[in-house]
């Protein structure tokens, strides 16, 4: 008896779904308000599990870059809570699920599959570039809509289904060189980069290109790799001997904290300039933040900005997680609002499958313009790259201070 009831219910659900699907294609052409309303009623009647958008994300919650994954997870959660409190997307609530990928390619694919098993329809991920490169093949295969908040490797956006919120590595390298040259920060520039990391070497290559075009002199480019990322004294000594006024550090804050300390021990105080990977250096527990005084970094987000959007976001984030959000959180937050806008433009409903959603999203993404935390008028070009103005901050008295 019980069995039969289950079968009936399942059949009813299937029928309802097919009805809803028909309704979806009908109303897509005739976008009348009435059509939409009846459609949402239909789906609501089916059961609550069908009536939510499931958006998934992945990033490192453990390991060396755990700060980034946690920020993405929490930043998106703040956006989701806001969206849900304001009536959801197209009247549907949003469910945010997140998996730890340890910033590892293989684990990221596993995380992605787990998320799909949990019913994910759109993917905000991954947080780190290397892991992202492993996942894009899968999402392209599935035709899953993907927007990475912070994966910066150039090739990530090659598949048509993948978009990006932050600047790509080439863009970061180029923008950094432009910033240094245009603001007359320094003339003689030294670089230390991680040649075992696509993020770091990607930025370096484009920085070098643009620096030359801008007339900056690169007096030395030293590298390290994942096997020897604690001792930078030799690299620093070489750059010091070469007369560098500024050292460009396109890598993550953990290593950067060591560079700053070792330069201090050497008694050398050039200017230091970092990219988004530098973000988080002030949150490093026990790190002597006086070493980071005067450090500049290219970042789209400064928690001290006075606009209302930033202030509200920072307040909500601090209340929920007890810490000041970093740009990764802001990127993730903006991703959710981009999705919201695109979903509303395309009239997507939760009962559509991921491939249909992706196709619908692709058609409307070029029309999206968002005034977000990481820039005003964020839009996306045909390659899925964001258009927004670069921002830089300098560390003063242990806090970010926005530069123009």
């Amino acid at each position, binding site marked *: 008896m019980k069995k039969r009831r289950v079968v009936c219910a399942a059949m009813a659900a299937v029928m309802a779904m097919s009805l809803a699907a028909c309704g979806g294609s009908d109303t897509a052409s005739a976008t009348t308000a009435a059509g939409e309303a009846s459609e949402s009623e239909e789906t609501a009647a089916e059961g609550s599990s069908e009536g939510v958008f499931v958006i998934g994300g992945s990033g490192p919650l453990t*390991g060396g870059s755990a700060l980034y994954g946690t920020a993405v997870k929490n930043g998106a959660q703040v956006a989701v809570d806001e969206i849900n409190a304001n009536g959801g997307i197209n009247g549907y609530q949003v469910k945010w699920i997140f998996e730890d990928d340890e910033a590892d390619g293989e684990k990221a694919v596993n995380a992605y599959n787990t998320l799909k098993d949990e019913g994910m329809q759109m993917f905000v991920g991954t947080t780190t570039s290397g892991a992202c490169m492993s996942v894009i093949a899968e999402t392209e295969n599935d035709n899953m809509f993907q927007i990475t908040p912070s994966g910066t490797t150039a090739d990530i956006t090659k598949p048509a289904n993948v978009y990006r919120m932050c600047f790509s590595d080439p863009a970061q390298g180029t923008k950094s060189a432009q910033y240094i040259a245009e603001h007359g920060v320094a003339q003689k520039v030294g670089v230390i980069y991680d040649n075992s990391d696509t993020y770091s070497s990607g930025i370096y290559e484009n920085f070098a290109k643009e620096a030359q075009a801008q007339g900056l002199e690169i007096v030395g480019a030293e590298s390290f790799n994942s096997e020897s990322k604690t001792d930078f004294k030799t690299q620093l000594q070489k750059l010091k001997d070469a007369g560098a006024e500024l050292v460009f550090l396109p890598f993550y804050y953990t290593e950067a904290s*060591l560079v700053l300390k070792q330069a201090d021990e*050497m008694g050398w105080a050039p200017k230091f300039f970092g990219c988004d990977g530098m973000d988080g250096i002030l949150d490093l527990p026990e790190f002597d933040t006086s070493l980071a005084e005067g450090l500049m970094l290219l970042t789209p987000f400064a928690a001290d900005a006075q606009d209302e959007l930033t202030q509200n976001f920072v307040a909500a984030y601090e209340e929920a997680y007890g810490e000041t959000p970093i740009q990764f959180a802001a990127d993730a937050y903006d991703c959710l609002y981009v999705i919201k806008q695109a979903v509303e433009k395309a009239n997507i409903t939760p009962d559509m499958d991921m491939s249909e959603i992706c196709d619908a999203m692709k058609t409307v993404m070029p029309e999206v313009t968002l005034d977000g935390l990481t820039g005003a008028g964020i839009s996306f070009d045909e390659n899925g790259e964001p258009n927004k103005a670069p921002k830089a901050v300098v560390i003063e008295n242990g806090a970010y201070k926005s530069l123009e």
Partner: protein
Amino acid sequence: MSSFLTYLINGISLGSVYAIIALGYTMVYGIAKMLNFAHGDVIMVGGYTVFVICSTLGLPPFVGILSAVVVCTVLGVVIERVAYKPLREASSLSVLITAIGVSYFLQNAALIIFGADTKSFQNVINVPSLTLMDGQVTVSGVTMVTILSCALILIGLTTFINKTKTGQAMLAVSEDKGAATLMGINVNRTIAVTFAIGSALAAIAGVLLCSAYPVLSSTTGAMPGIKAFTAAVFGGIGSIPGALIGGIIMGVIENLSKAYISSQLSDAIVFAVLIVVLLVKPTGLMGKQIQEKV
């Protein structure tokens, strides 16, 4: 010239840390004939112990270092007892795999206890740095302490092994376990003592490593552990002076090749030198040729 000196001193400093870690590998290998791959992670435990005592509890550095030595020594003995002793008669491959298992266990335990974020380690060695040649060369306090500790440990260990009964027992066990047992030496106890000493050295290495490069994460000990293992092989695994020389040479080659050849190729150069040395002297620089008795 001043730059060269700086590179050299940095190399010796880095090499001394490798050397102290390598001593732990080489002692355990020499006596127990096993590669204790968890050695690097014992270093990490030492680092975290100091971190908890000094940074979290705010006790003086001296207490922190002492506790690290005690914690690591106990840990070393416990690991030996629980994970390696039951496998004393098993093939060396099983013990090797167990050691890798212990290594992962320690890393993940640290991950659970201390979380994933990298901790910045407060320097517990407050020695002022030394300025030479009109300020052109600066030798940091940690560097001097590292080099000095390395020398002291070497002298201490050599004396211990040659002059004390336990030390002599270690030598005997390393040469022939069976015969040592017949001579009335408690092999299990000797191996336990070896682990205790090796782990105490790991604690000191942890303090020095984390003071020189003040970041602490669950994988802090892993890479230096592997480099130090290489240094031990380079110097001749099982030989105590070999570990020291191997460590320092590795550190110096690594730094000089970074400075004068290419920072990208430095690791490749270090390992190329290792290969050449092993081709010429298969037992490493100071390794003894052990005749297989028929």
